[in-house]
């Protein structure tokens, strides 16, 4: 009933698809979280107009399922790029843009919105006295942010960022629907000819489980390192 030959043969292809999954996850996390931190700082400092725009953006991104974001990015961006080309007098062939770019952009926006909420609450959780202490020794606001406030906020945000990242890795599976050959799409493709669905998806499940196990461990490690200064806070 289980086709072991198929499993053995499909392993290399499935493993070969891991990099594209990781490419999406890492680039979306890195770019998205930097944007998210920016949004958090803008909203925390109540920058007029921009702050309101960010609030609407975050609310929209949090309300719309990733799959729909992916579709919107996949169909809207080529038109936007084409129209931009026309406006500068060039005809850009949008079919040469790989689908993974659109997927990454959608995931970046999603991560920016979610991480901004995590950063915002982490920044609020840093004791106000810390900022005052910075001022009392004569630091500027940016020195205080960089040296004292952000490192503490980071330590607070890390567990939630870890959870967000694991969700992101899982979310990349939806890029299948906009034509990215990541792990899930590859599994489907391999399974189709002889309908080896059960084998293909057990393998896929295993790969995701291993990935999330590894990332979970990594985040725990980083968390402990960041938290060393609070190690005995409760003791």
């Amino acid at each position: 009933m289980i086709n072991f030959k198929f499993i053995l043969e499909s392993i290399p292809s499935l493993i070969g698809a891991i990099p594209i999954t990781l490419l999406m996850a890492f680039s979306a996390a890195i770019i998205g979280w930097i944007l998210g931190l920016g949004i958090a700082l803008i909203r925390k400092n109540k920058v007029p107009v921009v702050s309101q725009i960010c609030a609407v953006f975050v609310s929209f991104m949090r309300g719309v399922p990733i799959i729909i974001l992916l579709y919107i990015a996949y169909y809207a961006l080529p038109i936007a790029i084409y129209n931009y080309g026309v406006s500068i007098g060039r005809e850009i062939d949008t079919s040469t843009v790989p689908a993974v770019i659109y997927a990454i952009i959608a995931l970046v926006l999603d991560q920016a919105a979610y991480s901004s909420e995590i950063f915002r609450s982490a920044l609020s959780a840093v004791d106000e006295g810390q900022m005052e202490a910075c001022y009392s020794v004569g630091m500027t606001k940016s020195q205080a942010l960089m040296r004292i406030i952000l490192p503490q906020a980071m330590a607070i945000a890390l567990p939630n960022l870890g959870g967000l990242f694991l969700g992101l890795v899982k979310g990349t599976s939806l890029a299948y629907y906009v034509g990215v050959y990541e792990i899930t799409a590859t599994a489907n493709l391999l399974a189709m000819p002889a309908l080896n669905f059960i084998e293909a998806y057990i393998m896929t499940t295993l790969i995701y489980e291993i990935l999330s196990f590894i990332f979970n461990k990594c985040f725990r490690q980083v968390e402990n390192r960041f938290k060393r200064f609070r190690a005995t806070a409760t003791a």
Partner: protein
Amino acid sequence: MGHTYDFKSIPGYIPKIMKAFPVTIEILLLSLLFSIIIGAIVTVGSLSKNKVCNAISKGYISFMRGIPTLVLIFLLYLGLPQVMNSIGVDMSGVSKVAYIVACLSLSTSANMAEMMRAAYLAVDKGQREAAFSVGMKGFTAFRRIIFPQAFGVAIPTLGNNIIMLFKETSLAFTVGVIDLLGKARAISSASYGTNRLEVYIATGIIFWIICFVLENLSKFIEKQYTRGRKKATS
């Protein structure tokens, strides 16, 4: 591919897509019910002193948190019938909605279990001791003292879990259920995809509005529920 948008047509799609709303709600409510039941069972296991129960519950949660919902859907919808067939069970009678409800219940149950566990542990130990001290029995203490307090703690997370579950119902289209997104895809393919961007934006707006309502509802309920209690502690 067309290189134009027709933003003005977006509002017109909203009522058409909303025709599938009952399907989405059905999936949402059923999955919510089952995920809470499974979550409660898993929570009891994870809190029990029995090491085997404990390990099973923790393993279940960690497995469900590792697997993408889409993969779980494929595993159950495409894989399971094959396995069952090979042992002589025919699953062709099972509806697509049932598969989706099963998948969403399983994946959400892990979040529900973590929520319940955290809420239970957040209630001060002294509360249970106080309940015993006035002569309450175990279950009475839970029902009258522990649960109401834990529920208050859990409301924001519960609201968040429901919103996430609602968003995940959008995966129903992957097995061919005509939910909100399934309807949107049907509308789009009826016009050969020429209006797909507008249709997807309209679907996005529907999800956005409903999530917005759910979020504010959750905040409102939390406020109502904890109002008297917070005052009492201060």
